[in-house]
C-alpha cells in the first residue's frame, strides 16, 4: 500500500464532516484464520464507529488477539474483508496499517528495553537526518505528551521504568504516528488498580481528542467503565444471545456484567454429575498465605488460602494468567515460595525441591504436556519411568533394566488406553490425547496422595477428554486429593466438589459445586466481586 497517511486522514476527516455516522470507521466481515490444525477465527465480524470506545471481549483463546493482529497486518486472513472508512483495504504488514492510521498497543510491549522512551517512540519513523539528536526527539515527545495528557520522562530508559509507565510509551508510539484508531490489547493485564484508573483517564482523554479506540479485554470492570459498544467472541466466532435473537454487538449502557459474562463463557447449562461418594474428612493439602512472583518479578500469588481433602476435587477456575501456573509450580517445588506455607499430610513442603515433593506422593499433570509433561523424543516406556528411573524395579544397583522398563511400559500403555499400546513408540508421534494418557499413566499409577492437574484436556478431542475425566474421578474415588486447575468451566463444574476462583493472584471465592452457576463463576472470573452476603 502506498497511500500516504496525510491524504488518507484528510479524506477521512472530510468524510466524517459530511456524513457523521453513516460509514463506520472500520468494518471487518467474515474473517477466517487458521494456524495448522487450529481454526482461530471462523468468520468473524466487527464494526467500529468513529469516535467510540469499542470493547472486544472473550476468554483466552476466543480469537480476540488474532483478529486484531489481522487488522494490524501481522497476520493475513484466509478469508474475509476489511473496510476502513468505507474503502476496502489489503494489509501486507504493520507499515500498511500504520499508514492508514491504525495503531496497536500490544499486550506484550514491543519496546526495546535499553533504549530511551523517546527513542522507542520515534523508532522506525524518526523524521530526521541520519544524526540521532536526543534533545530534539525528546522535545518532540514532550509536546506529544502535553497534547494528550500523558506523562512519562522521555529520557528515561525503558528498562528502568515500571510496566505501567511502559504502557504509556506504547501509547505515545501510536499517537506519534498519527493513529486515529488505537487498539489496546489486554491493557490492564499488568497494571495495579491505581494505574488502571490512570489509564482510563488517558483513554477518555484520547476519545475526547477525536480518536477511536478498540479495547481487547476479558475484564468486565473495564468494559462497563469506559466502553460504548461491545463485541463478544467465543471459540473464534461472534456470539451474543438476546432473547433468542442473534445480535452482533451489545451497547454498554444497555447491558450488564452478567449478560456479558454469560455470553463470554456459557453455552447451555449442563447437568451436574452426581458425586458417587462424599469427600473424606482428612485434609491432604493445606495452603496458607502463599505468595510468589512471576517470571518477570511481578507478584503472581498474593496470599492464597485453601485446603483439599482426601477423595475431593477442588477446582480452580479463572482466566489464564491470574496466577494458576505459578500456584501449580509452587506446589511442585518448581517456583520459589516467597511467603506462606504449603502442608501435605501435615508436613511443610514449601521449601522442598521437586524430587522430595514427589516422594511425598504428589503427582503432577502439567498444563503444557509437550514441554513440561513429556520428553517428546523419548519412547513411551521411557516417559512412563520419568522420575522413577533410578529405583527398583527399573534400576538395580545403578543399572537400568530395559526388560522391566519395556514390560511396565507395555502394561501401562494397555491399562491407560494408549493407542497404539507400543512402549517403543516415540511419544512425539502420538496424538495429543494419547500423549496425555502417557502422562496420566505415569502420574496416576502409583497411588498418589495429591494430584495437581492443570488444563488436562486442552487440545484434546471428546473421547480423550472423557477418558481423562473418568480417570480423575476414579482417583477421587480411591481417596486421592485432586487440585484441578482449568479455564474450561464445563470441566470444572462437572468434576469438582468445590470450586475456588482465582483472580489477579488471589482466591476471590470458594463455592460449593451446587451453587456455582455459570453466571456466578463468569462474573467472579472476570473480577466482578459479589456483594457481601
Amino acid at each position, binding site marked *: 500500500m502506498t497511500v500516504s497517511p496525510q491524504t488518507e486522514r484528510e479524506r477521512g476527516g472530510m468524510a466524517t464532516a459530511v456524513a457523521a455516522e453513516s460509514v463506520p470507521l472500520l468494518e471487518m466481515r467474515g474473517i477466517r484464520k487458521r494456524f495448522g490444525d487450529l481454526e482461530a477465527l471462523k468468520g468473524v465480524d466487527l464494526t467500529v464507529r468513529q469516535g467510540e470506545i469499542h470493547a472486544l471481549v472473550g476468554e483466552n483463546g476466543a480469537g480476540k488477539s488474532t483478529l486484531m493482529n489481522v487488522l494490524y497486518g501481522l497476520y493475513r486472513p484466509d478469508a474475509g474483508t476489511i473496510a476502513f472508512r468505507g474503502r476496502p483495504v489489503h494489509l501486507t504488514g504493520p507499515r500498511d496499517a500504520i499508514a492508514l492510521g491504525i495503531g496497536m498497543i500490544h499486550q506484550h510491549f514491543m519496546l*526495546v528495553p535499553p533504549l530511551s522512551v523517546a527513542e522507542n517512540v520515534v523508532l522506525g519513523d524518526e523524521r530526521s537526518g541520519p544524526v*540521532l539528536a536526543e534533545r530534539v526527539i525528546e522535545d518532540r515527545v514532550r509536546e506529544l505528551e502535553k497534547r494528550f495528557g500523558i506523562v512519562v520522562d522521555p529520557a528515561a530508559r525503558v528498562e528502568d521504568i515500571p510496566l505501567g509507565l511502559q504502557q504509556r510509551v506504547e501509547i505515545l508510539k501510536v499517537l506519534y504516528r498519527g493513529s486515529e484508531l488505537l487498539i489496546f490489547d489486554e491493557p490492564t493485564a499488568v497494571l495495579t488498580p491505581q494505574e488502571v484508573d490512570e489509564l482510563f483517564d488517558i483513554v477518555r482523554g484520547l476519545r475526547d481528542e477525536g480518536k477511536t479506540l478498540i479495547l481487547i479485554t476479558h475484564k468486565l470492570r473495564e468494559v462497563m467503565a469506559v466502553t460504548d459498544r461491545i463485541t463478544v467472541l467465543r471459540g473464534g466466532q461472534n456470539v451474543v444471545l438476546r432473547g433468542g435473537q442473534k445480535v452482533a454487538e451489545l451497547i454498554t449502557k444497555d447491558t450488564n456484567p452478567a449478560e456479558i459474562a454469560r455470553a463470554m463463557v456459557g453455552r447451555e447449562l449442563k447437568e451436574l454429575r452426581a458425586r458417587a461418594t462424599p469427600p473424606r474428612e482428612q485434609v491432604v493439602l493445606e495452603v496458607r498465605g502463599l505468595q510468589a512472583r512471576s517470571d518477570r518479578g511481578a507478584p503472581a500469588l498474593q496470599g492464597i488460602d485453601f485446603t483439599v481433602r482426601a477423595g475431593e476435587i477442588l477446582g480452580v477456575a479463572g482466566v489464564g494468567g491470574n496466577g494458576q501456573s505459578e500456584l501449580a509450580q509452587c506446589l511442585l517445588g518448581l517456583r520459589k515460595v516467597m511467603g506462606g506455607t504449603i502442608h501435605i499430610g501435615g508436613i511443610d513442603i514449601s521449601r522442598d525441591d521437586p524430587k522430595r515433593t514427589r516422594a511425598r506422593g504428589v503427582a503432577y499433570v502439567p498444563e503444557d504436556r509437550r514441554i513440561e509433561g513429556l520428553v517428546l523424543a523419548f519412547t513411551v516406556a521411557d516417559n512412563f519411568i520419568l522420575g522413577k528411573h533410578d529405583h527398583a524395579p527399573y534400576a538395580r544397583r545403578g543399572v537400568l533394566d530395559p526388560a522391566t522398563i519395556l514390560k511396565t511400559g507395555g502394561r501401562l500403555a494397555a491399562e491407560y488406553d494408549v493407542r497404539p499400546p507400543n512402549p517403543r513408540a516415540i511419544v512425539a508421534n502420538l496424538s495429543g490425547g494419547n500423549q496425555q494418557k502417557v502422562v496420566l499413566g505415569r502420574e496416576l499409577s502409583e497411588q498418589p496422595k495429591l494430584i495437581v492437574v492443570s488444563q488436562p484436556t486442552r487440545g484434546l478431542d471428546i473421547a480423550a477428554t472423557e477418558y481423562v475425566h473418568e480417570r480423575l474421578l476414579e482417583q477421587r474415588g480411591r481417596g486421592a486429593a485432586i487440585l484441578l486447575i482449568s479455564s474450561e468451566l464445563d470441566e470444572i463444574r462437572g468434576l469438582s466438589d468445590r470450586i475456588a476462583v482465582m483472580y489477579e493472584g488471589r482466591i476471590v471465592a470458594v463455592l460449593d459445586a451446587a451453587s456455582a452457576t455459570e453466571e456466578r463463576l463468569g462474573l467472579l472470573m472476570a473480577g466482578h466481586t459479589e456483594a457481601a452476603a
Partner: protein
Amino acid sequence: MTIDQLIGAGVLAATLRLATPILLAALGGVVSERSGVVNIALEGCMLVGAFFGVVAADQSHSVVIALLAAVAAGAVLAGIHAVAAIHFRSDQIVSGMALNILALGLTSYLDYQLYGTTGTPSDLAGVPDVEIGLLAGVPYAGDAIAHQNAIVWASLVLVVLIQLFLFRTIPGLRLRAVGEHPRAAETVGIAVRRTRYWAVLASGVLAALGGAYLSLSVAHSFTDGMTGGRGFIGLAAMIFGRWTPVGALVASLIFGYGTALSFSLQGASIGDVRVPVQLLSTLPYILTILAVAGFVGRSRPPAADGIPYETEGHA
C-alpha cells in the same frame, strides 16, 4: 625486571601494534552482535583477508587492490555465515566454527598450490607506515608511538566512527533495536533480516582488514594459520569491552599490552625468580571468563544475540 621493560616507549608502541588486529576483529564482532548475529567466523574472515590480500598484492603490485581484495574475501566468507544464520536459521556457533575450519583449510591449500614450499614472495606491496607529526611531540613515548602503520591509525578512526554510528545515528539506533528486540523493530517496520545481513558483511570486512594488516603491514608475507586465534581474542575483547567500540579499544589495548609485556619480559626476573611470561599471556582469557561470569561488572550482550529470528506469517 626494569621499568623500561614494563612501560618503556618500545612496549607502548608494541602495544598499539599488537592491539590493532584484535581491535579490528573486536569491532567486527561488535557490529555483528549488536544486530543480533553471533559471528564466530571472524577468525576465518581475518585469515582469508590476510591470504587474499597477499595474493592480490602479488598479482597487482598495488596496495589499494590488495586491500580491496582482502576485504572482499572477508565479506564473502561473512556472507556465507550470514546466509546460514539469517536465512537458514542454522546454529550460529557451528556454522561459524565450520567456516573457520574452512578458511584455514582453504587458505593453506591454496597457499601450497600457489606458492608451494617456497612461500609467498618477499617483495610484496605493503601498506605504508604513517608518521603523525603531532604525536611525536608527546613526551616520553611520542617518538615510538607516532610512527605506526596506516592501518593502525585507520582502526583508531574506525573506533570513533563506529561508536558514533551506533550511538549517534538513526541507522545505528535501528541496528541496536534489531539486536535487542527484533520483533519490536519489525512491528515498527524495520527490515530485520536486511539489517543483519549488512551488519554481518561489515564484520567480515573489518576482520579481513585486520588480517590484511597482519600479512601486508607486519609480516609482509602469508603463513598458514598466521592469525593465530586473534579473531577469537577479538571476540573476547568485544565481550570484555561490553559490546561497544570504545570498550573494545580499551580491551584490545589491555590484551595487546599483555602480549607486548610477554615479549619485553623475556628472560627477565624479579630477584631470583623468573617471570613466567607465558602465564601472563593467559590473562586476557581469564579476564574474559571473569567478565562473562559477572564477576567484573555486569556484561550483557544484545538480548536477541545468537537467536535466529522467525518472521510471523505475514509478508
